[in-house]
């Protein structure tokens, strides 16, 4: 049979890797037919909600639930006393600490869960909450980690031994009762020596403020205990459904095969939905107690005040260099405010995440990092808000240190970066703090970015603006923000990455149907990233069946293979690799079937787009569709029927996406209002699977970066009151504040990843925060500004201008 379709058309028909395939998820979302956790309705379902403490630090004298239980529709009120016999009044955290599920004798942060009211609907639950009487005895509140390390006030009595001794924490010795851990990387003394002997040293202290991922959908779950079959089903906003199943099993004692965890559609995660929260445990217990399904959904205030803050790093740095600007050493100390419980979501061996990527994109021969974790009366969390574990903090630190060093050297910051970049030929490059960067071509990306924005022209324009300002011709300044970032994503190799002992591999299982369509299931879970679209594209290219004929399914632990979930940009680096590898197993079997059908030896056929052809005789072929059918209808000697494969992929290394960003900003000196004139973003995420989706991820990540750098924060007063508990005070940018972004790319494939992809969802956030911040600070550099802390809201920008005497 003569093939009338051209090879290019066959490639296009697959909608495989590299094409901007439209998303298969969109039909249901645009028609209001998504299925989010709060859309789930079960017969007799109850609603649970928390009584929360208004005090940040207090003893609980008594809890009286009598009046609450009289409210029509209220069925139960759970307190720690009810959970204690089950051993569920405390639960383990991801960071090796433990956390109260319901207040056990005291509370440690405002909004902490005190009692769980279970009622027939939300209104009855709210009425019940009003009538639970809790008597508190206030204790001194500490919201400053430096004060915490000096204070006699013990926040966690449960972690102090007899006679005031301090047992080791999960990460080694503790030096004070409010100290959690000290974590070190690199060489302390050699770094100190390099700094002592350096020609130039720049020092700076900076505070990366506390903020919150704030997905539009809050956290929630529905727990349903089927007492007849002994099965627990738990639907929820889980970024890691399989890990949640294991955790629920470990803490509840229910065998893992009797627990089914389902992540339905998730309305954004950004790290907020990685952890295990008291609401999940209480819903499960309430379902067991009442015999009915129980739903718990956070309101926005609960979300901002209690689940999953991000950042809150006080960072001090010293960077050493020659007079010509060659960096010789870097030192970093972090005081990390972890709140009342250490519930940071990091791989077990990394209590400060991958903060030791803080040498950035630069060839720095000597470095030392020291992180002290501290308890305060603030909410627990410490999640990676749209970044791989603490990488946002690390990149902000080094990109600010570079700017400060440029000021110290009186040098252009773009040039300073260029002369210190790790060179293309140095990859794979082992950094002073231990990571092996897999690949990169920083100079090419940097030159392309600077050329695209006409960097020289911008600097000339800026100089003219300064002259005009000084001459009284304008009240507007111009800032040019630069950042060059290297991410470390795709956690991670099982040899050094685990969460609660679970290796951070991921998985894919493929089943080809007789008619040549397929279903693939993965251990990850999309929260808007478009996995159902892009993973089908990977498979289409690997197995030669059209992406439109492949269903991707995630999030149901009864059907999907085990995986550690979606966060830290790990889906493409880890599960994407598993998908490609499982696809290759399918292809290997298909090759044997094709050879049998074509009556040649296995090695005499080769794969070509959507078929196997006889080498040297392209007119003789079997399409993958034909092979799929043959797998089910022919008795082939030596080959099992069917066409299925599974792959569990343990990545040999992380991946290291990078990028070059430039922001041009005008700042009104008298109002402090910044106007983002231009934002250019060049990303190198290795092999590009779907350019449309990549661009969308970049737009979104940059907007979250804009938010964090220009106003978004979780702020506390001295009493531990959260001052930014609603969207009135917590800044989420609208369409009005956000600019149009220019996106660009280079492609440096990962050498160890099966398809060379590196991950992209978080890069724009990681690179964007320092870029916006640097733009603000650069505008004031000609007037003596060295460093001001984020968030650069209008008031703080005005204050910077004021303090520099620009209003005189």
């Amino acid at each position, binding site marked *: 049979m003569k093939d009338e379709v051209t090879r290019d058309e066959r490639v296009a028909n697959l909608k495989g890797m590299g094409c901007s395939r*439209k*998303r298969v*998820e*969109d*039909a*249901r*979302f*645009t*028609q*209001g*037919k*998504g299925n*989010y956790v*709060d*859309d789930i*309705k079960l017969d007799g379902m109850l609603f649970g909600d928390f009584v929360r403490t208004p005090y940040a630090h207090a003893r609980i004298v008594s809890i009286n639930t009598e009046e609450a239980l009289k409210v029509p529709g209220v069925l139960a009120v759970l307190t720690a006393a009810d959970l204690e016999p089950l051993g569920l009044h405390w639960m383990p955290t991801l960071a090796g600490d433990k956390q109260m599920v319901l207040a056990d004798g005291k509370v440690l942060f405002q909004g902490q869960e005190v009692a769980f009211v279970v009622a027939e*609907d*939300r*209104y009855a639950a709210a*009425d019940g909450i009003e009538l639970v009487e809790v008597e508190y005895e206030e204790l001194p509140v500490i919201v400053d980690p430096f004060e915490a390390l000096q204070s006699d006030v013990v926040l966690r009595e449960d972690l102090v031994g007899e006679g005031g001794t301090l047992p080791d924490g999960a990460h080694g010795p503790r030096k004070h009762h409010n100290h959690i851990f000290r974590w070190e990387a690199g060489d302390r003394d050699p770094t100190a020596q390099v700094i002592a002997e350096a020609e130039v040293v720049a020092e700076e202290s900076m505070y990366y403020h506390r903020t919150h991922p*704030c*997905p*539009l*959908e*809050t956290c929630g779950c529905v727990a349903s205990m089927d007492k007849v079959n002994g099965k627990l089903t738990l639907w929820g906003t889980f970024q890691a459904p399989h890990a949640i199943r294991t955790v629920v099993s470990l803490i509840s004692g229910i065998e893992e095969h009797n627990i089914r965890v389902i992540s339905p*559609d*998730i*309305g*954004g995660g*950004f790290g907020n939905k990685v952890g295990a929260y008291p609401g999940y445990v209480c819903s499960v217990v309430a379902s067991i107690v009442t015999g009915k399904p129980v739903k718990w*959904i956070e*309101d*926005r205030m609960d979300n901002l005040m209690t689940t999953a803050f991000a950042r809150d790093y006080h960072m001090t740095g010293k960077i050493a260099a020659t007079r010509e600007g060659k960096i010789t050493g870097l030192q970093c100390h972090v005081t990390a405010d972890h709140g009342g419980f250490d519930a940071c979501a990091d791989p077990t061996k990394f209590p400060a995440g991958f903060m030791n990527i803080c040498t950035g994109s630069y060839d720095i021969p000597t470095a030392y990092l020291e992180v002290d974790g501290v308890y305060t009366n603030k909410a627990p969390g410490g999640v990676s808000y749209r970044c791989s574990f603490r990488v946002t903090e690390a990149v902000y630190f080094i990109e600010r240190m570079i700017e400060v060093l440029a000021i110290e050297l009186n040098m252009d910051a773009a040039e300073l970066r260029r002369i210190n970049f790790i060179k293309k030929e140095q990859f794979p490059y082992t950094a002073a703090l231990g990571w092996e960067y897999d690949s990169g071509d920083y100079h090419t990306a940097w030159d392309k970015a600077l050329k695209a924005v006409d960097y020289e022209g911008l600097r000339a324009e800026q100089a003219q603006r300064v002259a005009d300002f000084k001459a009284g011709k304008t009240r507007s300044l111009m800032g040019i923000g630069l950042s060059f970032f290297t991410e470390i994503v795709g956690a991670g190799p099982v040899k050094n990455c685990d969460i609660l002992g679970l290796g951070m591999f991921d998985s894919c299982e493929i089943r080809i149907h007789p008619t040549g369509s397929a279903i693939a299931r993965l251990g990850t879970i999309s*929260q*808007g*990233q*478009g996995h159902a679209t892009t993973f089908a594209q990977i498979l289409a290219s690997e197995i030669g069946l059209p992406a439109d004929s492949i269903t991707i399914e995630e999030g149901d632990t009864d059907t999907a293979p085990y995986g550690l979930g979606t966060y830290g940009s790990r889906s493409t680096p880890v599960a994407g690799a598993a998908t490609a590898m499982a696809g290759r197993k399918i292809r290997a079997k298909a090759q044997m079937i094709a050879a049998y059908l074509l009556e040649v030896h296995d090695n005499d056929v080769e794969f070509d787009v959507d078929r196997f052809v006889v080498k040297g005789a392209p007119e003789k072929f079997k399409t993958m569709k034909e092979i799929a059918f043959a797998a089910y209808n022919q008795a082939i000697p030596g080959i099992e029927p069917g066409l299925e494969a599974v792959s569990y992929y343990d990545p040999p290394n992380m991946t290291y996406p990078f990028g070059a960003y430039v922001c041009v900003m005008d700042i009104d000196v008298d109002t402090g209002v910044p106007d983002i004139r231009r934002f250019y973003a060049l990303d190198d995420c290795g092999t590009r699977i779907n350019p*449309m*989706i990549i*661009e*969308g991820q970049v*737009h*979104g*990540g*940059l*907007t*979250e970066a804009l938010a964090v750098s220009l106003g978004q924060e979780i702020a506390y007063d001295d009493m531990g009151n959260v001052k930014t508990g*609603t*969207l*009135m005070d917590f800044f*989420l940018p*609208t*369409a*009005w504040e*956000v600019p*149009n*972004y220019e996106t660009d790319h280079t492609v440096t494939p990962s050498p160890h990843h099966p398809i060379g992809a590196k991950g992209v969802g978080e890069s724009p956030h990681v690179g964007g925060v320092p870029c916006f911040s640097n733009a603000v600070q650069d505008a004031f550099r000609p007037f003596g500004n060295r460093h001001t802390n984020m968030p650069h809201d209008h008031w703080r920008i005005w204050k910077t201008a004021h303090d520099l005497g620009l209003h005189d």
Partner: protein
Amino acid sequence: MSDKIHIKMTVNGKPEEFLAEPRELLIYTLRERLNITGPHIGCETSHCGACTVTIGGKSVKACTMFVAQADGADITTIEGIGGPDDLHPLQTAFKEHHGLQCGYCTPGMITRAAALLEENPNPTEEEIRFGMAGNLCRCTGYQNIVKSILAAAAEINASKEAAQ
């Protein structure tokens, strides 16, 4: 609690009649009582717009309106804007131009955009950005939402012209 009140309303063309507590919020009525789950809850303070519906041609945030205030109202939600057999040009454009990611804001976003295009059939980009500022999206950065709305406006106007 308090005495229930008698409510009549039309939702997506369908008449509804029921007794409700005066304190019941419209979003609760839609989602829990009428099983219309397209409009979502994001903030309960009128900031995010995930709950946006249209009442008498005006965009309303259903999370902060009591159902008592909506007595007699003619309400349209995303479910009434278009379905599998009669997609609204906005629904097509949001897919075509990647105007959504997690999808949580999308029903409110499209419902608001539909009202905006009724108010102003030929909006500029600036007018769209201003007119959509009551609807928050955490995923897209708005650039492709603006693009989607511009494309839908052009599509609607072209088919109006063709019909004349």
